């Protein structure tokens, strides 16, 4: 990232202490989320809480925000004991939080959303004026009358931030704020955060993205499996050093052997479908082809048509027959089962309720998408023995940690379930594989394993489409690259020599900035 402003570290330590966390422990049945965690945040400091998925970052900040109570340990805010029983209390004491999964209401407008996050909101008209004022002051353009459901992810985040800023917080907690932003929007956000920091607001910044932390943060506390493993000044460390502290071992980038591209296995031409999801994004004239042996990476900020594209490819959304071709057979009019028969398997993003039925066993979930290609039914009757064998095969091949194949899917951790679901699709010998967010919420080791097996399938001759919001992941696995933006797909291009700036431009820059220019003019 450009525009780093090195802060004077001597000045940083001289600032008065704001929040002190001492020996916090929190256990859930079966897992210890936080164990003896201690750190200190000073006024105006940008403090990173760094760690992998599942390292205990989210639980930690939920305790600071009063959503969860610690089992033991204590916190002090400006020297006074601090134990918020509920978020309202935390807010009153000057602690605000911007959530990773937004706590917004789609059918309500911006002003109403903001009001819901405030203790004593002023009348709506006055509130709208204040929203406008604050949004201009911090360069976060926002129209208070707009319905949140119609906003982009970046704009939604602004609603959350402004909701916090109106309360004049002393400490602003940001949980993975950049995962939904384009590179340009990240720049805007960082500018705002730096301005806040200069004005004396401390920021607790949760992330696993190392470059961002090096660019933004004054101090970093690194968590691994619920414990603090290090505290450092990010600017003095390399990203690799911090990554190894975070993961606890050195990481191997996946191997990829570029084979020859084969014939086109998946062809999509001029595909337009209306979104079945409320406030969803319709696909507009999407066209691309994927050859055997090729991995096409599709990037884009969440909510730009990713879910719809997956539905249109899996067969859950039908189109005219010629719009989708599998191995040059028209397939647009086919449903999911027929497309599987034709050689296409798909893995949706949402594990709980879409890719898997959470309350059903792994065996039953293996049947969910494996029935057709694995021949698990005869004349409509289910061969449970064969289904169980298939589930066990996946469990072994993908190292799924589970007591057995008969436990409910929801009993598995997110990462383990994801491995199971990836294995279920990847082990069917399909000629076309479509995956949305292959490693969302999965720890680094499992993510590396999943990416490796995607590359292996491609090497064996499958055509693979990977839809992801993780640019690093896409650059790692993809041969060609395209971006979904408001339901339109850019023309796929080779990943060789692609720069972040180019990607940013393909992603459509920063959303809604026209408004800002208007306001300035």
């Amino acid at each position: 990232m450009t525009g780093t402003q090195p802060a004077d570290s001597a000045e940083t330590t001289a600032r008065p202490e704001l929040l002190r966390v001492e020996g916090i422990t929190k256990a859930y049945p079966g897992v210890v989320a936080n164990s003896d965690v201690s750190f200190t945040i000073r006024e105006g400091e940008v403090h990173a809480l760094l760690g992998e998925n599942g390292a205990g970052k989210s639980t930690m900040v939920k305790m600071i925000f009063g959503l969860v109570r610690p089992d033991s340990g204590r916190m002090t805010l400006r020297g006074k004991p601090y134990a918020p029983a509920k978020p309202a209390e935390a807010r009153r004491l000057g602690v605000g939080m911007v959530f990773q999964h937004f706590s917004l209401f789609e059918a309500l407008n911006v002003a109403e959303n903001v009001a819901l996050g405030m203790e004593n909101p002023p009348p709506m008209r006055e509130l709208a004026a204040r929203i406008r004022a604050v949004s201009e002051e911090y360069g976060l353009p926002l129209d208070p009358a707009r319905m949140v459901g119609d906003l982009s992810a970046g704009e939604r985040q602004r609603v959350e931030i402004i909701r916090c800023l109106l309360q004049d917080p002393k400490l602003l907690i940001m949980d993975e704020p950049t995962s939904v932003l384009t590179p340009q929007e990240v720049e805007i956000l960082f500018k705002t955060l730096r301005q806040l920091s200069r004005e004396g607001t401390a920021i607790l910044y949760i992330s696993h993205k190392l470059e961002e932390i090096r660019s933004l943060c004054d101090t970093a506390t690194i968590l691994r499996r619920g414990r603090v493993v290090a505290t450092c000044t990010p600017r003095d460390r390399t990203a690799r050093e911090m990554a190894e502290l975070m993961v606890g071992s050195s990481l191997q980038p996946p191997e990829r052997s570029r084979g020859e591209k084969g014939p086109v296995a998946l062809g999509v031409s001029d595909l337009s479908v209306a979104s079945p999801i409320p406030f969803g994004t319709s696909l507009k004239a999407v066209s691309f082809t994927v050859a055997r042996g090729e991995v096409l990476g599709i990037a884009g900020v969440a909510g730009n048509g990713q879910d719809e594209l997956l539905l249109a490819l899996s067969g859950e959304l039908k189109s005219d027959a010629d719009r989708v071709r599998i191995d040059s057979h028209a397939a647009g009019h086919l449903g999911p089962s027929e497309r599987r028969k034709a050689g296409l398997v798909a893995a949706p993003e949402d594990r709980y309720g879409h890719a898997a039925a959470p309350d059903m066993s792994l065996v039953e979930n293996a049947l969910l998408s494996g029935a057709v290609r694995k021949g698990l039914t005869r004349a409509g009757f289910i061969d449970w023995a064969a289904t169980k064998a298939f589930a066990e095969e996946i469990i072994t091949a993908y190292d799924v940690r589970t007591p057995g194949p008969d436990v409910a899917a929801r009993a598995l951790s997110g990462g383990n379930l994801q491995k199971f679901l990836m294995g279920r699709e990847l082990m069917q010998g399909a000629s076309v594989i479509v995956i949305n967010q292959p490693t969302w919420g999965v720890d680094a080791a499992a993510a590396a394993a999943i990416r490796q097996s995607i590359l292996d399938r491609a090497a064996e001759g499958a055509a693979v489409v990977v839809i992801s919001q993780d640019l690093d992941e896409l650059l790692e696995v993809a041969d060609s690259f395209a971006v979904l933006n408001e339901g339109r797909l850019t023309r796929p291009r080779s990943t060789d020599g692609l720069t972040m700036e180019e990607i940013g431009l393909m992603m459509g820059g920063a959303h809604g900035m026209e408004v800002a220019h208007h306001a300035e003019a």
Partner: protein
Amino acid sequence: MLRLEKRPTPSRFWLYATPVVAVVLTMIVGGILFALMGKNPFEVIRTIFWDPVFGEFAFYLRGQLLVKAGPLILIAIGLALGFRAGIWNIGAEGQYIMGAVVGASVGLAVFPTDNRLIFPVMVLAGAFGGWAWAMIPAILKTRFNTNEILVSLMLVYVAQTILAKAATGFLKNPEGMGFPGSRNFSSYPAAANPELIAGSGLHWGGVTALVTAVLAYILLSRHIAGYQIKLAGQAPRAARFHGVSPTRLVMLCMGLSGALAGLAGLFEVTGPAGQISIDFNTGYGFTAIIVAFLGRLNPLGIVLAGFLMALTYVGGEMASTNLGLPAAAIQVFQGMLLFFLLAVDVLTNYRFRLGAGAASAGAK
């Protein structure tokens, strides 16, 4: 403080234990209710739950149990398939009436012809009547996205009007001296559904109910259609991902439950009821909802639940004649049973824990 915590895997023990606990709780609270009404609770409970099976008149009442349980089981199995899939057909009462009216019309249209095929054709017509009546909400739901709960229920009232019209108009017995009600099927053997074994209470409806229970059990546990029904109910999006067509599923579940309710109506009107009358329907379509839930939406469970509910009917009538217990008290009793079942059911998927919890702001 007590708080709920979701179980990682649903409890098998509580899946089977909840109906038992619910029945026991209902007996206790029901007993208190009966005591408040000035009855001896132990006597009432004994009259309802013990006497019909083992008491003085059990030889007759046991047969009555089967008579009442048959239609309840038949309807409840159809409903359970839909409920499993998240399709809420609560208008079984209407489908039951329409099955009876259509089936009876066919039979009475050919009166007094004697042919061995008449009864089977009436059975088909009965199933068709119920099926067609259920297709109205099904088509409206799939075609226009109309709420099937409200439509199927509204159609009960419409069916009742049609029944009244049938009993006093187009099916009225021309030799009935002006009284409402159709000809009695007991005097028209070709179209009647008599007791198969004297004194057993078993007629074709009971046979059909038991056979249907077995078939439904196989469907749910072994067949892909049964899997799809369960999947659609638990995770509708996953069902679409699997390849279930929601439209076809609604048609299938509504159609099946309608046809089964129609069959129940036909067997009832040609057998135990004997004729189409304004009030030949005794609310089986609604009670079957309780039966379906009490049987855990499982066909074999429904058979047990059907007999239990039949017990409350038969025993309730006994308690009404012998002890002067109002008939409405039995309705209250049945409602309570469903409440307790729904409440205790939480234990299948959750457990209670003591102390401050994960998400409990203000647990202390």
